[in-house]
């Protein structure tokens, strides 16, 4: 029995280090290859020994697919390909291919230069890894090999994010990566056609949340920023360089313009300036409105937002600073946070999800005293706000996507177990499909029953379809033919054609049964009686009395003959071919019962 097997190596009942193994139609595909922000030890990368204990990665995997450039989806890639060793193809979209190596390099720098980690991947490894990447376009059908094909769909979420359909024969799996179902200020909404996969693997970050309207959240955000700036406070917005940062910049830029505000807005340097440039060049990946107007006004050229210098953090007076990274786990955002945390006039706004173990997660869960490196304790007096701007689908959005794709079953990843449980029930109830939520290392097996495509000869098909149009289509009609299987070429042809093609002659098998009847009249009269008897009984059949005295029912021939010894007995010879056996044998048994008495003049 064919089956689809799914094993998360990461992101199983967890957010971080997304990495899901899928076996479908004899092919093995790895979906994403991420790192975990909450760990600094071995657990930060997926456990590839799950594969390597049985052999080399390249031998096992047919391809790797990266859904988008966030590090929890691609952060382990150089480790995976260059240190563990994988030489097969890695698929991702063009924007992901462009941006991914920059984020990887940034990640490497923080890990090696700032934290002094040894045995980390090198810059050269990132370059070598990216050489294995094959870029894909939206909706392009990429033939990985003769049987395996993949196709990318728009996912929103961040620039270049994609959902992927993985297909072998008639079996398919869709992996969503991260997605959002509502367009925001810079990206469009995820979209997929009714592709009816056997399995939909979806993220479930916001499995239990149903968020209020985007407008309300935006208004709320602007109000909080505005109030803080008005009272002379500083606003820190930790962001990832690409994604929310651009959305919030557009939001603040237009607000500043409209309200004629003067407080400076800064963007932490390096990555983010470059990031805006990527958005300009890949503007076809942004939302409809931005694409339409970019010639007149490019939304990613900001007037009010200036590059940040670390010295600015100590400037007096209000300011707004976007700083990386987004979960306050390292880098510039954390440095600024430590400087500003003590002042209750200031505010930190967390616009996205924070993984457990990060400073972001700690302050959001209400901690007001943080133990920093060197036993130092940081007291938080600044206001801490959380605004869900991260572009993940909420429960409603996930249900919407399930409805769009119409999968036969659903598998949840990239979420917390408790919340998944709730969503799983909801999906099972609403769509009446199985929903799975395996933990890391746990395998889900789905039996599938793919249909088998064959070529049917047009003659046979047309003959059948023409007859299918006849009015007596009450009874299901049977198509009869011969399947010729040569290598992997399967053809269904009519039996006659099969014989002909194989150079074989038909062997005709014919039966003739003698049925004895008591009837002293002439043979012709007996035949006539047989004819009227059958004609009255077999209304749906073609019963004919031929000029030579014989009777036919369809292609069955009945002849009456005299008995050689007994003049009071006639012999009916009923003759039919093997193909008409049922009717032939039915007729003989019918005739054996004798004919009804002649209406008149019988002796």
């Amino acid at each position: 029995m064919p089956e689809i097997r799914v094993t998360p190596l990461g992101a199983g009942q967890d957010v971080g280090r997304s990495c899901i193994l899928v076996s479908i139609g004899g092919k093995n595909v790895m979906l994403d290859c991420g790192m975990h922000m909450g760990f600094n030890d071995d657990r930060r990368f997926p456990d590839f020994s799950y594969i390597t204990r049985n052999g080399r990665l390249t031998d096992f995997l047919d391809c790797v697919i990266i859904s988008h450039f966030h590090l929890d989806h691609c952060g382990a890639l150089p480790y995976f390909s260059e240190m563990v060793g994988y030489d097969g193809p890695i698929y991702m979209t063009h924007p992901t291919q462009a941006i991914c190596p920059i984020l990887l390099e940034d990640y490497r720098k923080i890990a090696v230069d700032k934290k002094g980690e040894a045995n980390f991947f090198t810059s050269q490894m990132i370059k070598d890894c990216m050489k294995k990447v094959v870029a894909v376009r939206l909706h392009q059908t990429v033939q990985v090999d003769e049987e395996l094909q993949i196709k990318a769909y728009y996912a929103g979420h961040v620039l270049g994010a994609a959902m992927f359909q993985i297909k072998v024969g008639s079996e398919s799996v869709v992996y969503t990566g991260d997605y959002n179902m509502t367009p925001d200020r810079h990206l469009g909404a995820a979209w997929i056609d009714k592709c009816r996969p056997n399995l939909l693997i979806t993220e479930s970050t916001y499995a239990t949340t149903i968020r209020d309207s985007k407008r309300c959240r935006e208004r709320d955000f602007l109000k909080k920023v505005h109030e803080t700036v008005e009272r002379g406070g500083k606003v820190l917005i930790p962001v990832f360089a690409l994604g929310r940062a651009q959305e919030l910049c557009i939001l603040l830029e237009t607000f500043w313009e409209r309200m004629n505000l003067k407080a400076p807005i800064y963007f932490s340097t390096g990555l983010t300036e470059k990031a805006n440039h990527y958005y300009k060049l890949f503007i076809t990946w942004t939302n409809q409105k931005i694409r339409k107007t970019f010639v007149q006004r490019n939304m990613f050229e900001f007037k009010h937002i200036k590059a940040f210098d670390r010295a600015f953090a100590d400037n007096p007076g209000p300011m707004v600073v976007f700083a990386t990274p987004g979960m306050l786990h390292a880098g510039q955002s954390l440095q600024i946070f430590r400087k500003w945390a003590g002042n209750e006039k200031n505010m930190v706004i967390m616009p996205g999800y924070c993984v457990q173990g990060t400073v972001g997660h700690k302050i959001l869960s209400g901690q007001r005293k943080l133990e920093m490196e060197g036993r130092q304790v940081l007291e938080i007096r600044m206001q801490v706000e959380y605004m869900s701007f991260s572009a993940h689908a909420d429960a409603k959005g996930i249900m919407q996507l399930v409805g769009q794709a119409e999968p036969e079953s659903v598998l949840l990843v990239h979420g917390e177990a408790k919340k998944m449980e709730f969503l799983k029930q909801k999906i099972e109830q609403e769509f009446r499909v199985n929903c799975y939520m395996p933990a890391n290392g746990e395998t889900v097996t789905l039996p599938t029953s793919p249909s088998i495509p064959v070529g049917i000869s047009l003659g046979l098909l047309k003959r059948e379809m023409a007859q299918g149009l006849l009015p007596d289509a009450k009874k299901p009609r049977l198509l009869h033919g011969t399947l010729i299987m040569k290598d992997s070429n399967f053809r269904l042809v009519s039996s006659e054609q099969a014989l002909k093609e194989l150079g074989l002659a038909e062997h005709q098998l014919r039966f003739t049964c003698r049925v004895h009847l008591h009837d002293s009249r002439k043979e012709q009269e007996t035949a006539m009686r047989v004819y009227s008897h059958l004609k009255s009984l077999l209304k749906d059949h073609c019963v004919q009395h031929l000029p030579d005295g014989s009777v036919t029912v369809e292609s069955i021939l009945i002849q009456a003959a005299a008995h050689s010894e007994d003049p009071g007995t006639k012999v009916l010879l009923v003759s039919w071919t093997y193909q008409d056996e049922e009717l032939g044998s039915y007729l003989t048994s019918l005739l054996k019962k004798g004919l009804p008495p002649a209406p008149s003049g019988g002796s």
Partner: protein
Amino acid sequence: MKLYCLSGHPTLPCNVLKFKSTTIMLDCGLDMTSTLNFLPLPLVQSPRLSNLPGWSLKDGNVFLDKELKECSGHVFVDSVPEFCLPETELIDLSTVDVILISNYHCMMALPYITEHTGFTGTVYATEPTVQIGRLLMEELVNFIERVPKAQSASVWKNKDVQRLLPSPLKDAVEVSTWRRCYSLQEVNSALSKIQLVGYSQKIELFGAVQVTPLSSGYALGSSNWIIQSHYEKVSYVSGSSLLTTHPQPMDQASLKNSDVLVLTGLTQIPTANPDGMVGEFFSSLALTVRNGGNVLVPCYPSGVIYDLLECLYQYIDSAGLSSIPFYFISPVANSSLEFSQIFAEWLCHNKQAKVYLPEPPFPHAELIQTNKLKHYPSIHGDFSNDFRQPCVVFTGHPSLRFGDVVHFMELWGKSSLNTVIFTEPDFSYLEALAPYQPLAMKCIYCPIDTRLNFIQVSKLLKEVQPLHVVCPEQYTQPPPAQAHRMDLMIDCQPPPMSYRRAEVLALPFKRRYEKIEIMPELADSLVPMEIKPGISLATVSAVLHTKDNKHVLQPPPRPAPPAGGKKRKRVNDDIPDCKVLKPLLSGSIPVEQFVQTLEKHGFSDIKVEDTSKGHIVLLQEAETLIQIEEDSTHIICDNDEMLRVRLRDLVLKFLQKF
């Protein structure tokens, strides 16, 4: 399977393919060479043009001199220019299901088709094709609409009048179907019917046919199309290039194994090498400018101009041209330059790599930043303030009949210091210049046509091996001007089928198979047996379901459980359905073995007689006779069903079922 040929222009094709149950229009080209018969539309009142003498028939017909003007021995229609539309009568265009567009030059007739024929289908094109196609249409509409002309000439089109006119008016075809330009509203409505597609995207049409665009290497987003079902494949090749310019390289491999390859859009200048032309272009340009003259380059707002600007970027300093202003004038100049920078995914590898840095893929961004290249929507406004001479102007339209180019022709035509350099291959430069004669200005003809030439075509055809090639008739003979050049035509075996305007071709297709799916439950029940080494057979009896052009075979319904009890059934219930087919049989019966088998199964008193064709086996006790011949067996017995069935099964042991 038929091909309806609606356009006679080999590079501006418009064909309709009937394939299985679908009607597919391939491209929607607009033949604009008709405009060469008209007087130019000047942006600024031109005394020269308005004072041209009227032209009359010798018999003194007075009506014509208002419509026709004479200039240096050529006669022109003084009217709003008109275009030659694809044939609209050959096939009911409201039955067209989809239109496939291959590149932005081949969609210019779209509004005429989608807005005026009852068309209700979908148009498929790539995003760059649509965006740049929109720019070309907007430019065209703008050129025509900003110079309103009251007069619309029609008398000359009268057949009796037309045949009295001098060439080329006399020979102009289908003049009665020539139409004025569409409006912006019609453009928007037409473009709203387009659905965007990407290379290698498989698009299902009604479950019957799949269409796929492939990169054709000619222009941003330009595509060839594969139209296929599971067993038939048509490749539509239109405007392809193997040269390395800015677009993504041509995808040749996917064209393999075509039953029919429709080949259109080859180079219009097969004798000119594009690289050589670019070299000549720059040397003429530099020479003119150094001598203090101006250079006029009539061009489209997108396409080769990107490559010319790129060469310019590399050339400008070394040629000492850095102080010369370069102007690009078009209502869509800015949009075209901006759009070219955002289609990274449609560009060649080198340009893609630049975007990853991230840097703009085309260096004209830098030319603009450093003020070496300036662009303006028209000669009015800012341009008149900035205008410095000598300079180089890129502007449209290449027909020289409308657009800002008309102004520069009038302005610079009288001085031999100036040069007009023709780079676009769509219009004969001599005809384009005719209404400006006599001219003192130098004319250089450097047509840059990167589309396939005949050497490349023959290589391509050898590579992809289509069973049949279909092409416009122009490609099956050498060009009229070079009748001895037998190398300037398509050479393939079997020879190509050619078409001309308003012809219908029956494509040489023999459809033999159709895809059908066998449901897994049915597949499990099949019993294959090996007939010959490597060939297995299984007889299939199944129920056929057809929905949305997809066929599925399901297992036959289980026979209804036998009615319980001894209740008498009505006679009719027992009558078997004669439509239940039994398999055919094949093989032969070896008599000796058959007799042995009979004996093993308890038959005795068996006698075998030889006949001319075989044998007769007599079972005397059972009064049964079995005639066995090479290809037939006949069992003649009493009405004893048990016996008959026993004998049947013994016979069947020796035969194979089909």
